[in-house]
C-alpha cells in the first residue's frame, strides 16, 4: 500500500459513563479507496469517526490524516477531512449557498465562487442555491450536508450512515454520487449497517461489532474467503421428502419440493459437489436446471459475528 491517507494506531474510547465504545484499533486507509465500516447499531462506528474528526476525545492511541497527527497537528489534519454526520444537522433558516460558503471559510479557505458553483452543480443543487434549507426535501438536505463537507476540498470524506432511513431510490442516487466523488479523487470512509451497501460500494470492508474491529479485508477477498456457495437443483418431478441417501450432505427441499438446495464452502478442499451429483444420478433424480450462488455479505457477517461469539 502506498502512503496511507489515514493511519490509526491503538485508538480507543471509553465514555465517561464507562461504556467501552471502541477497543484499541489499528487501521490504515489507502488513497482513493472506498472503505466501508460495517457493523450493527452501537458497534462503535460513529465513535471511531467522531474521534478522527475532533468531536470526541480519544481515550488512547493516536491517528493521523495525510501524515498530520489529529491532536498535535489538528489544524492541518482537519483541513484534510470532511464529515457528513449521521444526524441531519443544518441551519434551516440559511440559504444553500450561504451555508456552503460558511463551511468553506470556517475551514480557513478563501471564498471561491467558481469552485462552489461546480460543487453545487455536481450535487444537483445549483438550481436550489438561493432556497432556504427548510424548503428542501430530506434527500436534498443530505446533499447540502455533503456539499458542506466537501466545500473545503478535503482529501478524506467521512459519510456516517449516508443512507440510513433513506428510501431505495435515493439510496441508489447516493451510491452513484459516492462513486462519482471517488472518481474525483476523494478517499471515502462510510459507515453502514446495511450489508448490501458495503457489498455494493466498498473496495474494502471493516467489520466492527461491540467496539471491536474484528476483520478488515478486500471486499472480494472477503467474499471469496468466507463465501459460502449455494447449489440449487430445479427438479423435474417434485420430491415429498429428502431421500435418506442424501442426508450426509444436509440438503434441503424448497419451493414445495421443486428445488433441492445444498450449501457448501467454495474454498474447501472437498466441496462435496461431485459426490452429491453422483449420488443424485445413482438415485435417478432428474433435474431441469442447476445454478450456484455466492453467499451475500449478510451471510458472511452473520457467520463472523457468530464465530466471534462462540470463541
Amino acid at each position: 500500500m502506498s502512503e496511507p491517507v489515514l493511519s490509526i494506531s491503538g485508538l480507543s474510547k471509553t465514555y465517561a459513563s464507562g461504556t467501552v465504545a471502541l477497543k484499541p484499533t489499528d487501521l490504515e486507509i489507502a488513497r482513493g479507496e472506498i472503505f466501508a465500516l460495517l457493523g450493527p447499531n452501537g458497534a462503535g462506528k460513529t465513535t471511531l469517526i467522531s474521534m478522527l474528526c475532533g468531536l470526541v476525545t480519544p481515550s488512547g492511541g493516536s491517528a493521523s490524516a495525510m501524515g498530520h497527527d489529529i491532536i498535535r497537528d489538528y489544524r492541518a489534519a482537519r483541513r484534510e477531512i470532511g464529515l457528513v454526520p449521521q444526524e441531519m444537522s443544518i441551519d434551516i433558516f440559511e440559504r444553500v449557498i450561504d451555508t456552503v460558503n460558511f463551511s468553506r471559510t470556517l475551514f480557513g479557505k478563501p471564498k471561491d465562487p467558481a469552485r462552489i458553483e461546480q460543487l453545487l452543480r455536481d450535487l444537483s443543487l445549483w438550481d436550489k442555491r438561493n432556497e432556504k434549507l427548510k424548503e428542501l426535501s430530506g434527500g436534498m438536505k443530505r446533499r447540502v450536508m455533503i456539499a458542506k463537507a466537501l466545500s473545503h476540498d478535503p482529501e478524506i470524506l467521512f459519510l456516517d450512515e449516508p443512507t440510513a432511513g433513506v428510501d431505495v431510490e435515493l439510496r441508489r442516487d447516493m451510491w452513484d454520487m459516492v462513486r462519482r466523488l471517488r472518481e474525483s479523487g476523494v478517499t471515502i470512509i462510510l459507515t453502514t449497517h446495511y450489508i448490501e451497501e458495503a457489498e455494493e460500494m466498498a473496495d474494502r470492508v471493516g467489520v466492527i461489532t461491540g467496539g471491536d474491529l474484528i476483520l478488515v479485508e478486500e471486499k472480494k477477498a472477503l467474499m471469496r474467503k468466507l463465501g459460502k456457495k449455494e447449489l440449487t437443483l430445479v427438479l423435474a418431478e417434485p420430491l415429498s421428502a429428502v431421500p435418506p441417501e442424501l442426508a450426509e450432505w444436509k440438503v434441503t427441499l424448497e419451493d414445495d419440493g421443486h428445488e433441492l438446495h445444498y450449501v457448501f464452502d467454495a474454498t474447501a478442499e472437498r466441496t462435496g459437489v461431485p459426490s452429491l451429483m453422483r449420488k443424485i444420478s445413482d438415485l435417478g433424480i432428474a433435474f431441469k436446471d442447476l445454478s450456484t450462488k455466492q453467499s451475500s455479505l449478510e451471510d458472511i457477517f452473520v457467520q463472523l459475528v457468530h464465530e466471534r461469539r462462540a470463541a
Partner: protein
Amino acid sequence: MNWRGIGSIYRFEMHRFARTLWTGLVVPVITTSLYFIVFGSAIGRNFSGDIQGAASYGAFIVPGLMMLSLLMESIFNASFGIHMPRFTGTIYEILSAPLSPTETVIGYVGAAATKAMTVALVILATAHIFVEVQIAHPLLMLLFLALIAITFCLFGFIIGVWAKGFEQLQIIPMLVVTPLTFLGGAFYSVAALDEPWRTITFFNPFVYLINGFRWTFFGTSDVSFGISLAITGGLLVVCIALVGLIFRTGYRLKA
C-alpha cells in the same frame, strides 16, 4: 490564526441578528422611550435625590439604562449563539473545523458583543431625543462599554454551554442580572440609601459596573473609576478562566 474561520462564525452570527433586526432594535427604542416618559418626565421632574452632576434626572438614568440592556443583550446573544448549534447539532461543524477554542470564542463573543454594544448605543441615541446627555469621557465610555460587553458575552457563552434547555438560558438573566442591576443603582445613587442597605449594596458587583460607566458620563459616581475598572477586569479574568476550563475538559461540548 484562522481569521477566515473566525470571520465565518462572526458573519453567521451577525446574519442571525440581521434576520431579527427590526425587533432587535425597535424593542429597545420603545422600552427606552417608555422609561423616559415615566421616569424622565413624570417622576423625574419631582426627583430630589442626588444626580451626581448630571443635567437632569433623565440624563442621570441614561448610563443605567444602557447598562441594563448591555448586560441582558450580552448574556442573551452569546448564550443563544452557542446553545443553538448544540441544540440543533450543527456544532459538529465548528468542532471539526481547524479552529482553536480561542478562535471559536472570538467569533461568537465578538458578534454577541457587537450586537449588545449596538443596542446600547441605539439607546443612547434614543435618549438623546428626550434629554441632553453630555459625555465627559467618550473614549473611556466606549472602552468600558466594550470591556463589559466582552465580559458578559463570555459569561453568556458559559451559560449557553452549561444550559440543558432554552428555559435555563433565561434563568440567569431574569433571576440574577435584572434584579442586581436594578438594585445596583441603575436608576438612583446608592450613596443615598440608608444603612444597612448601603453597605449590603456594595457587595453587589453590578454597582461597580453601573457606577464606573456613569463616571465616564458625568465625571463623578458612588465609587472610584479605578475600583470599577479593577472589578470589571476581575470578572473578565474569571470568565476567561471558566471558558478555558470548558474547552480543556470538553465540558458539554465533547464526549
